[in-house]
Every structure is written in structure tokens, then in C-alpha cells.
């Protein structure tokens, strides 16, 4: 096992692998977090607006934090599990959202959206995966998918705004604290318009004016009438890990027969910080060479193709010293 000995991570990995071959849930060192119960809305609300207004009134207008009293969700946070599968499948297995299988739950989505979801799932069952994802061409995940994307996130709280930043495509949500919804844009956007208030250390958010999107790859589409109410709160789970618990209720009169709720987790990722990871600007449009081909599947441009974009190579000034975008590697 010569070269395995030189790879420091492998001895431990091998041991753990043997222990978990039969069940990812039952081996030392890897504890699947217990999912908190999904919180249903405290009433039947016709819209996210109505839901949010109720919560705001219940909190007596919300907690007026100062910069000193605001919760701080410092560091890098990674996506954890969520319960969205329980909404859209007969089976309550998160892993169905990652691949083939499962039975689409009838009557959750409106007929047109359910039909589309069934077609998507049929494709996944046939090919093992969704052939094309709209993110391939650098389209933003947007809301609600932003919550689910498996990259790292950072959070900055200020008395008048919260910034929720995703590594993926630099997609930042701005939550305007104590304000009303506004839309002077005359259109919708990927992250929409979000307002919020603090109820103690819990952040309550209302989001609307979002582009049509999806809950994730392999999952149903959302419409341009989608809106949602979220609550975010930092907690310590039973393993002692710091987690963010996000309770969400989705409103989408064009896609959902009635509002649906789910809970999402994020976990504080100290190991990434210890490894030196810092979030860098994501220049998707200049660094991605994947595209949708004539068969509706995903394909790459490769070096030598006229359409290929060298993510570190392009410059309008090749003869000028210091124009390389990869000085460290080039200097080796």
C-alpha cells in the first residue's frame, strides 16, 4: 500500500468506510444530525405577506438589536440535510432528492407543475440524473434553491440589513430589517426582495418578487409567483455542533396546491477555515465551459475548441508584463 501510506487521510477513511458500508447512519465519528421537526405556519395564511405580518405582530414589531446585541453567525457554513423530499415524495428519504427512485406525491403540485416534475423524475430514472441543469450556463440558483446549494455560506448581521452570501456564483441575499417590500425594478430577480425582523435571536424573513426557479436539481420548479417566509436560528445540536436551523414555508399559487413547509440545516465548518479556505469571487461566465448541447444534455468546450474559455488565460494585453491571471502556477 505504498502510495496510500503517503496520503495522510486514508488510514482513517478506510477504517470508517469499513464501519459504514452497510449504513451511513450507524458508525462512530459520523453522526447524521437529527432533523428538527418541521414547524407549520401558526395559521392558514393566503400569502407569505400575511404569514409574515402575523409573525411580526406576534413579536410586537420585533427585537430592536444594536450592532453589539445582534447574533453573530461567524465563519463558514455548509449545507446539511433538509426535509423537502417529504413534501414531494411518498417516501421521506432525503437521498431521493439526489438521484433516481421515489414516488411523486400526488396533489401537492398543481397539475401542470406535477406533470413537469414527473417528467423530470422519469428522466432521472432513465439516465440516472437530470441531463441538464439550468445552472450549467451560469444561471443563478436563486430562491428557494439558494438555501440548498452545497457550497459554503457566510452571514453578516447589521441592525438595518443582513447579508447572506453564498460561495456559489457570489449570490448574496440582502435582508432589509424593519422595512417594507419594494420593487422599483419592474421585474423579478433570482433572490427577489427580502425583508425581515429579529425575534430575539431568531431572524424572520419574507421574500417575494423572485424569478421562476427550482427547489434544487432533481426537484420541482417554482413559479414567478413564489414567495416564502423563513426563520433562521443558530442552535447547538446533540453532537455539540453549531447548526443553523431554517424553517421555511413556501407559497406558490401557480405551482403548489397549498403552502408547504420544510426545515433546512447548515453546519458550521471549522475544518474549512482550518484548511485555509476563503471564499473567492466566482467568475462563472468566464470560467465555465459547460453548455447545453443539441440533445438537451450537458457538454463541454475543451482546449482547442474555438468556444473554449481559458479561465486563467485570457488577456487583451498578452505582450504586457504581469497580465497573467495565474502568476503562482506560471512561476513554478
Amino acid at each position, binding site marked *: 500500500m505504498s502510495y496510500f501510506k503517503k496520503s495522510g487521510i486514508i488510514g482513517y477513511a478506510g477504517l470508517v468506510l469499513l464501519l459504514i458500508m452497510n449504513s451511513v447512519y450507524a458508525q462512530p465519528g459520523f453522526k447524521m444530525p437529527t432533523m428538527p421537526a418541521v414547524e407549520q405556519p401558526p395559521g392558514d395564511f393566503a400569502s407569505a405577506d400575511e404569514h409574515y405580518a402575523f409573525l411580526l405582530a406576534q413579536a410586537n414589531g420585533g427585537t430592536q438589536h444594536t450592532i453589539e446585541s445582534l447574533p453573530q453567525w461567524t465563519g463558514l457554513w455548509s449545507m446539511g440535510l433538509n426535509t423537502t423530499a417529504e413534501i414531494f415524495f411518498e417516501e421521506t428519504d432525503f437521498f431521493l432528492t439526489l438521484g433516481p427512485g421515489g414516488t411523486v406525491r400526488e396533489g401537492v403540485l398543481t397539475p401542470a407543475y406535477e406533470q413537469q416534475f414527473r417528467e423530470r423524475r422519469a428522466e432521472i430514472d432513465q439516465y440516472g440524473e437530470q441531463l441538464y441543469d439550468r445552472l450549467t450556463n451560469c444561471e443563478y440558483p436563486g430562491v428557494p434553491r439558494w438555501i440548498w446549494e452545497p457550497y459554503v455560506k457566510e452571514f453578516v448581521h447589521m441592525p438595518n440589513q443582513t447579508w447572506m452570501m453564498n460561495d456559489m456564483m457570489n449570490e448574496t441575499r440582502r435582508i432589509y430589517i424593519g422595512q417594507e417590500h419594494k420593487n422599483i425594478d419592474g421585474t423579478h430577480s433570482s433572490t427577489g426582495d427580502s425583508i425581515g425582523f429579529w425575534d430575539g435571536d431568531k431572524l424572520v424573513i419574507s421574500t417575494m418578487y423572485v424569478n421562476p426557479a427550482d427547489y434544487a436539481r432533481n426537484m420541482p420548479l417554482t413559479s414567478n409567483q413564489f414567495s416564502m417566509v423563513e426563520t433562521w436560528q443558530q442552535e447547538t445540536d446533540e453532537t455539540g455542533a453549531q447548526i443553523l436551523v431554517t424553517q421555511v414555508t413556501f407559497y406558490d399559487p401557480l405551482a403548489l396546491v397549498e403552502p408547504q413547509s420544510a426545515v433546512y440545516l447548515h453546519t458550521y465548518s471549522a475544518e474549512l477555515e482550518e484548511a485555509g479556505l476563503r471564499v473567492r469571487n466566482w467568475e*462563472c461566465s468566464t470560467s465555465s465551459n459547460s453548455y447545453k448541447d443539441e440533445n438537451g444534455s450537458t457538454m463541454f468546450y475543451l482546449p482547442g475548441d474555438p468556444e473554449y474559455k481559458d479561465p486563467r488565460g485570457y488577456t487583451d494585453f498578452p505582450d504586457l508584463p504581469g497580465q497573467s491571471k495565474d502568476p503562482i502556477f506560471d512561476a513554478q
Partner: protein
Amino acid sequence: MKQTHLKATAIVLLVVGLFSTNLLFAHHSFQMFDRTQLVLIKGSVTDWNFNNPHSWLHVEAPDSNGELQTWSFEGASPVHGVRQGVTGNTFRKGELVSIVMSPMKDGRNAGAMCFVVKENEEVTFPGDATCNAYMVAQQWETNSWVKEGAHLDSHSSAP
């Protein structure tokens, strides 16, 4: 601190392996790769792009006619690469590497990295979840398919 990181890295490798047919960790599908087979490429690094949305390792290696060509291999995004112990400094220009990869279905000189053995025999895992990297690396090690294998050797990806 180091131990915590190693444990976390190991767990990520394992979870990625368990999800190896459940590819949510990239921003596109992997239909362009033939994941039923794994091919060995032995070449010299020409570029290592450790950037989003995916890292790419480019090497110079002979094609099936013996002519030197550029081969390109997709890997994980930086955040997932770091979890697997890979950074932007993992590969150096001119370094000889052995890449085990799922080839493109269309036959072009490209593929999805499963694992890469460096010149110093260190095994690295820069790939996305296109294979069960740890188990595959162990299988190839057991059979000496990297050390004694020839450029363009191919084996089934089935365990």
C-alpha cells in the same frame, strides 16, 4: 486541530463516495462521461485551474496514435476539493501524474478525474463525485494498476 480536519476530510470522501451515483455537488450533470469504465492517463501537468465552478487539470500525454495531445480532466470546485485535501498548489507544472478518470463518451481527450497519483506516489482526490474515489483507488492499488499499468489502460468501474 489537524486531527479534526483529517476526520472531516475522510468523512467527506466517504459521503461523496456513497453519493457517487447521486451527483448534486456540481453545477451540471455528468452525462458526458462514461462512468462504466476508468482509464489510466500518464502525463505531464501543463495547467491546474483550481477555480469555480470546477477545477480542471490539463496534462500533455500521448493519444491512441502516440501523438502528444492536451488532455483535460474535470474536478471538484475549490470548496469540495479542500474538503478532500486538495488545494491550488497540489499540482505543479511539468509534474508527472497518473490520472484515473471516467472518459468522455464522445472520445475526446478529456474526462472526469477519479483520483490522481502524484510523482511522489501521493494519492490525491481532486475529483467530483463521478466515482467512489476511495474504493476505486484502493482497488487500483491492490491490483497495482497504476504502478504497473500502461498509459490508456482501462478497467471497469464496477467494484
